[in-house]
């Protein structure tokens, strides 16, 4: 058990304490130590790892469906454009950003926008072409607040500036994976893997003997394969595998 010691109060000690208290009161009256951020006049500077509104880069997307598959809230639907692209239903999205983390090509990216307003429920299903750039931003704030934490000492630092709400795309450092065949002896020869490949990374060569096709030679073009795993999921015999390239 911890006992709090009785404070010894002599004249000098209590005078010192009074002065200290008065000083603190003065300080707070002039320059208060507010913890509260007065949103929307002020906005906290969010870190680059912030999970906000999702931005989409259609050039990088390989339509592998991985984002739609992994979404725990089932908020991502693939929509038909020139290729299937993801659309996000913000009535369902829980901002876990599994989609961004699972994207093999880094075509999805976060932003610092957490306050998105929609006029109708239907508008909350945001299609891919609405995600390519940041939504129109109306800003009211004058200050950006940085929270500085150093050991036990912390303070809010208000700067009269507007924060940039976009986040530069993080360079994806997923180990490069390519598809390989783990058991060619079980290949049915259906070539569905080649058909489903968005990058035409699996080629099929028909071997002919006396004008008769005797076999198919399937080949993975390692430089074209992005390791999206679409073929792995398609293979009816489950013989395809993604392997890390060193």
């Amino acid at each position, binding site marked *: 058990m911890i006992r709090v010691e009785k404070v010894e109060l002599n004249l000098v000690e209590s005078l010192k304490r009074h002065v200290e208290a008065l000083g603190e009161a003065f300080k707070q009256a002039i320059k208060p130590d507010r913890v509260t951020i007065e949103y929307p006049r002020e906005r906290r500077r969010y870190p680059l790892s912030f999970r906000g509104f999702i931005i989409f880069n259609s050039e990088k997307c390989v339509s592998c469906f991985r984002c739609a598959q992994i979404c725990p809230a089932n908020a991502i639907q693939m929509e038909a454009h020139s290729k299937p692209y993801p659309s996000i239903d913000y009535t369902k999205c829980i901002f876990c950003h599994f989609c961004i983390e699972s994207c093999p090509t880094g075509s999805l990216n976060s932003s610092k926008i957490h306050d998105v307003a929609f006029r109708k429920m239907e508008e909350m299903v945001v299609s891919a072409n609405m995600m390519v750039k940041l939504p129109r931003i109306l800003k009211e704030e004058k200050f950006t607040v940085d929270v500085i934490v150093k050991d036990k000492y912390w303070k809010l630092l208000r700067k009269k500036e507007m924060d940039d709400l976009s986040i530069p795309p993080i360079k994806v450092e997923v180990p490069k994976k390519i598809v390989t065949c783990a058991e060619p002896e079980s290949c049915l*020869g259906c070539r569905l893997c080649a058909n489903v490949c968005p990058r035409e990374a699996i080629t099929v060569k028909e071997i002919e003997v006396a004008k008769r096709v005797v076999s198919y030679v399937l080949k993975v073009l390692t430089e074209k394969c992005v390791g999206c795993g679409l073929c792995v999921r398609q293979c009816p015999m489950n*013989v395809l595998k993604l392997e890390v390239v060193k």
Partner: protein
Amino acid sequence: MITEWQSLLPEKKLEKKYFGILKEIVIDSKLCSHCAACAAVCPVDGISSGDQPIDFPNWTEKCVDCGACIKVCPRYDYKPLSGLGDYIEIFSGRSKRFVGQDGAMVSEITVSAIEMGLIEAAIFAGRSEDWSTKIVTIKSPEQLKNRKVTGTKYSYADVLIALKEAVLRYNSVGFVGTPCMISAVRKMQKTFKKFERVKLAIGLFCTENFYRHDLYDFLIEKKSVNLKNVVKTDIKKGKFIVTLKDGRKISFSVKELEEIVPSGCKVCQDFSAVESDVSVGSVGSEEGFSTVVVRSEAAKIVADYLKEKGYAEISQTSVDAIKKLCDYKVKIHPYPKKS
């Protein structure tokens, strides 16, 4: 790391897509045994089976021409198997743990194999209330306490389709099937390595099998028996015996069923499932016992295990009775068909 591989194609006997060839040479020539091996391996899931003849609606467009169906079809390049085949031992048994068609040895062998760790799961053809077949994946002995799972159904079931799914999921599986299914699985194992995961193939003695709707209609029209009220069907000594819920038994000669025997069964001469790991049937045993024909080393280990544990009563078998039926099947199902 294999990034280049080859898939060999079977020879094309006709200038068609492979399913077209299968259709003309096997299905339309009335050789199809309805084992559904083609439906199991079809990469585009286009081949339909169930309670109707094997078909692939609009195969001309959807067939990807991979030839997998032809590679596994036991009736393509058909050379009928017959006789009792090779075996290590033959005995009769009656399970002490399960109730089945006769001695419930299929259930007993399956459960013993699961207990030993030889297989992780086994595919059985169960049935629903109206005797339509329902595939069951057996993983624990409790599942075989259900009489709708054990016992003979005399109807085509999509066992091999479920077997393929099981092969993708488990490392070792077993299944129970008719001789044509066993032959199909052996062909699958020869062509596609993945099917080597089928570690235990339990064959059933079989003279013929039926489409469920044919059997259902036949019993209603000719015998005014609704299959929904039936608890057991059996073939014994040339008689088809139907046991009703109220205990009544209706029996008639199997010959009466001749009109509904599917054409594919009429060319089959394999009574004892010669390519199986172990064959089970009633012929050759006394009432309440099942004959077990152990053919492979793996099955021998299971048989020894269940004998050692005392899971079954063991009795003598009349090998001659089985041989007689093997010969009988060859006689009634001539191939090539005499025109």
